[in-house]
Each structure stands twice: as C-alpha cells, then as structure tokens.
C-alpha cells in the first residue's frame, strides 16, 4: 500500500507541472560566450534579455554562459529547443554558422544572431552601429586629457574596431587638435593578462585616458584606476562602478527594447527577419553617466555631440586623411556604417598600424 501514495504524488506532480509549462507565453533561449557578470559584452546582452523578460509577462528565459564557439553551442541550443524555446539569441559572432544550420532544421524556432550577416526566414541579425557613437566619447577624451595622449586597447583589429578607434580620434580632434590616440592590439577579445600589460604600456607612453574594445572592459578600467588614469568604458554602462575616481563616461549597448520587440513579434507570429543595425539615435546604444571629475562645460560639449550623432551626423565625412598622409575621403565624400567592416586604415592622429 505504500506505492499508492507515491503514485498519487507523481500524478499530482505531473498535473502541477503541465499547466505551468503551458502557461509560459514564450520560452526564450540565450547563449553567451562569457560570463554575464563581465561588466562588458555579455552583461549588456544579459541585461537586455532581463529587460525583455520584465516587459513580457509569462516569458521564460533559459540562459547558458561560457559556451565556446564550437559544436558545443549547437548542443546547448538544441537542449533549449527541447525545453520549448521558440526564440533563441545567439549572442556571439562565432555562433553564426551553428545557429544558421540549426535554424534550417527547426523552421518553427526563430534565431537572432548578434553581429553577423546571414539571413533566413527564421534567422535575423542585429547589432549596434557603434562607430559614430564613439565620436562623442572622443570629444570627452579630447577635453579631459592633459598629455594629449589617449590610449586605446583593441582585442582583434577587425574593421569595426578600427572604425571605433577612428571615430574616437575624429571626436577628440574636433575639440583638441593636438589629441593623439595610441593603439595597442592584444590579439584576443578576452585575455586579462595581456589587457593589463597593454594598459601598462599605454600609460608608460604617456596616455592619461584609457579606453578599449574588448569583451570585458573591467581589467583595463581597473588598471587605469590603479594608476590614477582616466577611463572611458565600452560594451556595458555598468562598467562605471569600476572607476569611482577616474571614470569619464562610456558607451553601452541597450538591447532591451529590440529584444522585447522581437519576443512580441514571435509571440504574435509576425516575426520578419531583418539585418538590424541601430545606434545612439534609435536607442540601441546608450551613453553612461559622467564621472565626478568631468566639468559641466565638457559634459555640455559631449551631450551636444551625442545629440548631433543621434540626429544622423556621420563622423566619416571628408576630407579625411589617414595616418600615412593618404587622402581617404575627399571633401563631400562620406563612408556609411555598412562600410565599416572593411576598414583597414587609421585616420591621421592615430598612432598605430591597421594592417
């Protein structure tokens, strides 16, 4: 007779779990290449998904951190589909092919990939248009530097990163013609030891403002803070907490509105694949609050530059000469955001080699 109560309990459990599953309006899967507490790329993605969850009642969010860009991600996403996921955010560039292949085998699941180019009936693509948004960061750095030397740590010198550096220097030059950007490439999106060494090297060369394009800005911001050097963050505006003394401002992704809209379109069966590239104007990028050391007049200048870029100003408007003296854009010419991936030259004022 002891089996009967257990059987009843099992039935009750089944009854209890079933409706709960049916109640979930939508199950969303998210895969991250790093930790969601990195003050950087992955944290920004995670916060976007949290915002989506908060704005969509009944939504279930499945998350997996530290998933390498190998067949492992295919297994993780398949597991999420088995758990009922109908929308999957593949948030790292190297997930693209795996997610795309999986999308063909699962036509009822929508995939959104960050940063790539592939398209399919149930496969969309999104990223921030970061380059122009770096212009106001340059304005801030150009006004705050005393040595006229700005340090930029780049993980991997892809065109988009080179574009970020260029817009940063163009912004700095617009308020301080003497401002120069020194670039150090570590060769990896995530190597804290090399990032520390790169920050040290830039400080040794006289940089008094450091910024970066790596997955997690934390190590470089902390190195700057420890050396009494100013810093500008990138990826997540949360990085501000790391530099109570030297923080100027920073650029962070604001994925929440896009992710919420995507979830709603999937729930309404109205999903349309698109290549989404939005910037400051559309609110996909946000500027972090200013640090305590930034004077009011500098804040006003930066805010004006943010306003200008939000309204469509393109910093890549001629005449622009590269750092070898070659005219790259003539008067009146300009370079659109879609051309950034192929950039392989630095503007005048950047100390570094792009090729």
């Amino acid at each position, binding site marked *: 007779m002891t089996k009967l109560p257990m059987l009843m309990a099992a039935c009750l459990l089944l009854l209890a779990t079933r409706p709960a599953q049916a109640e979930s309006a939508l199950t969303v899967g998210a895969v991250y290449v790093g930790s969601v*507490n*990195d003050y950087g790329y992955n*944290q920004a993605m995670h916060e976007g998904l949290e915002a989506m969850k908060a704005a969509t009642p009944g939504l279930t969010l499945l998350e997996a951190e530290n998933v390498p860009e190998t067949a492992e991600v295919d297994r993780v996403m398949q597991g999420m589909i088995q758990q009922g996921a109908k929308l999957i955010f593949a948030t790292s560039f190297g997930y693209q092919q795996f997610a795309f292949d999986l999308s063909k085998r699962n036509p009822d699941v929508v995939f959104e990939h960050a940063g790539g180019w592939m398209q399919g009936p149930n496969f969309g693509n999104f990223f921030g248009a970061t380059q122009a948004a770096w212009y106001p960061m340059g304005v801030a750095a150009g006004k705050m530097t005393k040595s006229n030397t700005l340090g930029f740590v780049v993980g991997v010198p892809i065109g988009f990163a080179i574009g970020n550096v260029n817009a940063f220097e163009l912004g700095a030059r617009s308020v301080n013609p003497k401002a120069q950007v020194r670039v150090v490439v570590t*060769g990896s999106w995530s190597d804290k*030891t090399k990032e520390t*060494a790169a920050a040290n*090297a830039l400080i040794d060369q*006289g940089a008094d403002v450091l910024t970066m394009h790596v997955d997690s800005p934390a190590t470089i911001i*902390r190195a700057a803070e420890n050396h009494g050097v100013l810093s500008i963050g990138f990826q997540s505006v949360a990085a501000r907490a*790391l530099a109570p003394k030297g923080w100027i401002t920073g650029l962070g992704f604001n994925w929440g509105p896009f992710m919420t809209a995507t979830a709603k379109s999937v729930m309404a069966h109205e999903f349309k694949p698109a290549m989404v590239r939005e910037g400051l104007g559309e609110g996909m990028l946000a500027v972090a609050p200013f640090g305590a050391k930034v004077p009011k007049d500098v804040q006003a200048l930066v805010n004006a530059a943010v306003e200008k870029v939000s309204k469509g100003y393109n910093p890549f408007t001629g005449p622009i000469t590269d750092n070898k003296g070659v005219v790259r854009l003539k008067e009146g010419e300009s370079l659109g955001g879609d051309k950034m991936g192929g950039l392989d030259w630095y503007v005048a004022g950047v100390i570094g080699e792009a090729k």
Partner: protein
Amino acid sequence: MSVNFASAVLSNAILSGTSLLYATLGELVVERAGIVNLGLEGIMLIGASVGFAATFVTGSPYVGILAASLAGLAANLLFGYLVIGRGANQLAAGLSMLFFGLGASALIGGRYVGAVIEGLPPVLLPGVRGFDALVWLGAPTALIIWWLLFRTRRGLALRAAGEDPAVAFAAGYRPDLLQYQAVAFGGLLGGVGGAHLSVAYTMSWDEGMTAGRGFIAIALVIFARWNPLWVVVGALVFSGAEALQLQLQARGARFSPFLMSMIPYLLTLAALLFWGRNRRSAAPAALGRNFHGVE
C-alpha cells in the same frame, strides 16, 4: 611623462613574468624528481580562482595567496597519488588534471567574475614602481631552489629519484616519498603562480584566464635545461617578448601579435635543437617513467 623605453619593457616583463616564474620553478622541481605534470595549466587556474575567491571573501590578498598555494598543493597531491600511488600514466594523468583544473576553477570562480578586490599591494622601494612582495621574492625563490637541489643531500636524493629511482632506493631513500614532496612543492608554487595573475597582476578572475601560460611554463623548464637559475632568465625572455611587442605597438611600431605569441615555443624548439644531445643539460633520465619498486 613617458617612461624610459627599456625600463618600461623591463618592469612590465618582470611584473607579467612573475606568475610564469613561480609556476615554472614548481614544474622544474616536479620534473627533477622524475615526474612531468602536463596539468600545470589546471593547477594554475585552481590557484588563480581560489586565490581570487579567498581574497574577495576575507579582504586580504595575503590570505588569498596562502589559500591558492594550499589549493595548488592539494590538487597536485591528487595528481601525485595517481602517478606515484597508483602508477597511472603521467601524460594521461596530467591531461586529466588540466581538464579537472579548468572545470574546478570555473566552478570556484564562477560567482566572482566581475568582483572587485584590493590586490596585493606594491612594496615600495626607491625608484621602482608597483612591485609587490611576490615579485621581489621571485628571484630569491629560484636561488633557494637551486641551493636546495644542488647543494643539499635532500636535493641530491630528489634528483637521484628523477635520474634513477632504484639508485635513490639503494641509497636508503624512499623515491615515492621524495616524489610526493616534489609534487606537493610544485603544486604550491603553481598555485602561487596562478594567484599572482588574479590577485596581483590583473586583480580579476575570468574563466581560463591563464590562457596557456601553464604550457609555456612546461616549455620553459626545457628551455632552462632543468636549472632554476635559468628559469629566471627564461621567464624574463618570454614575458619580455610580450612586453616588448606591446610597448612597440604603443610607440606606433608594427608587430604581429600572433607571431609574438609563438616566440616562447620557437625559443623552446631552438633550445631543444641546440642542447638536445648535450648530456649535461639533458632531462632527468627517469622523467616520465613510473617507479614500481625494486625486486
């Protein structure tokens, strides 16, 4: 106020090379006793994660370093039990330790990604910036290990265990106990090496943050021809190559970062080429072979 180029390269090389120095010295002692531990990378990661977590929890970087050294010691004793106690294949056991270390450190450190700690403070001497206690103790540690290995009876016995365990046994020593001591000491230093990265140098923890330095350390042992004093030179050369290329970049010179990351292995290949057949500098004769006792 840019710093003199040579001194900038040197001070950055010393700072970033310290973790490599400790880990390599640890591996060297283990190999001198006849055991090769390919899992050093995993041991370093355990040290880095435990050291960071302990520093965060207690607020003391010194407690963190101590905890890291004990964790490295414990992990290496596990490895030692496998290869000395159970006679397991050293290469297989070492690779298992590597993956065990990767997983265990991710588990231990997972909660502390992004955590902020006060790192190991610099010990200020006139004219030198930012060197912490572990940096200052690095070269003396190498000297002490050299003295222990080559100028004491116990060091001789330990080397005998690495050259020919049967001889050490005949001389009245227990090769297995000597090897356990070497493995424990090596784990301690490997843990310290890992912790220097997380607690002192970068002051942050990230999964897999050693990024292959455990393997560079194994290569360095060969480069240093199993001599602790050469390890100091080797660690400086290797970290110097990295510091140099970053400093050159900051000055605007172009160097492929990918080529630079090959330098440690190229130098090791060169060392193997030049010193490969020299008996005086060859590896301990019984390296990698398990001792199963004498009849």
